[in-house]
């Protein structure tokens, strides 16, 4: 089987280096190059992966059959527009757009090309086990889902609204929101939220939030996307779900598999081990493109998860319940 020629178009997102390492190591992929608005960053990434730097989006179009779009969030829309219609299959970093109108337009563009959204948590064994428990009836009807997707403040472009496009609602609501839609179907009926800049003074957008939502089937869902973990805290990044079902409680802790390392002074750090969900997602996407299958995570599903974040932003501003699109 011929290798799939893949380019990375936009590489400013924190997930770009990991994706590039996987792409350059995959026997099914020919990594044709990296384009980024910042040539220095592109060449730095190229050095570490052996992929050439591409000078323009056009260069990607001529060499690649598929592209991973992984820039800072506000640069995503322009790059997807630039490659749309050139016949490339795309894997687009979440969230899908930084405003409702961008998200709408991206959903429209996805009709022209196979567009998959990068929501790797679907591939994690914790998530697939939960989905099985939900679908085989062992959990019974799910009444409520309480999720957290918290982190330390990541720094970098997260402090620059012109690059991040939003705060922790935009960045960290989508993973848990997507799992709920993927596992139980239905749609978002209503959302309320509180948010503020409360942990890191001076940030341009919220670093702290709580989202309280209802699904069309009556399930209640809460998501805590806050950057509330202190810098250097072991296990600072979490993604947890507690699902209250009629037949029991299911708990998911995506980053639970880790080894505690105590140094000579007794200080603890943790080494994450366990499933490579990013690799599983990329592998599935590459297979789908190679075999001409439909996108593994269609734009409509990325759109639905992102719409919850936009509605939550609006609910914060109005102090009232908002119905997501």
């Amino acid at each position: 089987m011929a290798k799939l020629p893949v380019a990375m178009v936009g590489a400013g997102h924190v997930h770009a280096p990991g994706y590039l390492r996987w792409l350059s190591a995959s026997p099914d992929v020919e990594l044709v190059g990296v384009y980024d608005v910042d040539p220095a960053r592109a060449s730095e990434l190229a050095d570490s992966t052996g992929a050439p730097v591409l000078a323009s989006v056009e260069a990607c179009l001529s060499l690649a059959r598929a592209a991973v779009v992984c820039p800072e969030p506000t640069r995503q829309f322009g790059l997807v527009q630039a490659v749309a219609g050139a016949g490339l299959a795309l894997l687009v970093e979440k969230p899908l757009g930084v405003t409702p109108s961008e998200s709408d337009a991206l959903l429209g563009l996805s009709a022209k090309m196979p567009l998959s959204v990068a929501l790797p948590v679907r591939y994690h064994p914790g998530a697939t086990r939960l989905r099985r428990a939900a679908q085989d009836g062992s959990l019974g009807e799910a009444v409520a889902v309480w999720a957290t997707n918290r982190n330390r403040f990541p720094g970098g472009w997260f402090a620059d609204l012109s690059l991040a496009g939003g705060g922790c609602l935009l960045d960290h609501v989508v993973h848990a929101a997507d799992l709920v839609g993927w596992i139980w179907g239905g749609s978002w009926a209503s959302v309320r939220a509180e948010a503020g800049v409360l942990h890191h003074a001076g940030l341009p957008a919220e670093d702290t939030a709580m989202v309280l939502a209802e699904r069309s089937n009556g399930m209640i869902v809460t998501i805590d996307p806050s950057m509330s973990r202190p810098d250097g805290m072991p296990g600072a990044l979490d993604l947890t779900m507690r699902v209250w079902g009629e037949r029991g409680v299911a708990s998911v802790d995506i980053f639970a598999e880790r080894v505690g390392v105590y140094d000579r002074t007794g200080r603890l750090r943790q080494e994450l081990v366990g499933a490579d969900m990013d690799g599983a997602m990329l592998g599935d996407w590459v297979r789908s493109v190679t075999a001409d299958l439909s996108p593994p995570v269609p734009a409509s599903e990325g759109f639905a998860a992102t719409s919850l974040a936009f509605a939550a932003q609006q609910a914060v501003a109005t102090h009232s319940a908002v119905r997501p699109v």
Partner: protein
Amino acid sequence: MGKTHVLSLLATAGAELAGVAAPDIGPEVAELCRVAGAQVSDDVAGLLKSGLDAVVIATPTDTHVSLVEEAAAAGLHVFCEKPLALDVKQARAAVDACERAGVKLAVGHVVRYFPAYAKIRELVKRGEIGSPAMAKCRRMSGPPGEARGWYAEGLRSGGVITDMGVHDFDWLLWCLGPVERVSALVAERGAGQVAMVVLAHEGGAISSVELSWMDPTGFWTAVEVSGPGGLLSHDSRSSATFRFDQDPRSETGPPAVEVPVGEPLNDPYHDELADALAWFGGGPAPRVSPADAVAAVALAEAARRSASTRETVPLRSATP
């Protein structure tokens, strides 16, 4: 809770258990009363007139206010289980009755006496994490058993938001200050309920309270407060100094309503009652004032309204 308070009273120096009035006290409490020489009857009015100094009310929530009023009218100081009442109007009536009668009213917001909760509040007030930004309280239990069916009756207990949540509402008000807005959702299946309540505090801090009467693993609580300067956390499961996993084939099932059991050395239920009794006897005021108890009921009432209207509910200053 009746048995817990009987045990606490028996263990409190300077207190004497004069009598217990209840429709059915069960063999264990009956034996404790027999040994202590305390009279047992179902005659509340008679007990209140029997020359007491104070009374402990540990009855279903919907009966609290009329019993507080009756005790106050009899000139007795009152320790009342939480929540003081099902709504703020009733709670104020209870406080007013005690004020009019010139008796003291203590309310069993025992979480303030749980060492980890008290320590976290102390650390927050000391500035350990800077200006507190976010708090998360979790309180889980199995469904209330059939023997105490009134808990599951929303009109009698207020459901999981009022019965369980009022503990955390009181602690959050104590720790993070008054609340401006409440958003809540509740879901029910049979006797099981889960609820999530989000509070916007004056000054901007956000807190959330996760409540469940559906946890098959039984009772546990957890709390976390974070701010610019760090994070404080406690989980009752990971800080248990004793654990007993009963053989599921054993014949004694779990209790009807799970109450964390204190040992004499470190028993929050004893400490809260001892504080109240000392206050009744002329000592310093306990951690929970009558106004605090009213504020916690007001918050619970607003949360229930938010859960039923599915809208955010603004609160006028929660602390009167």
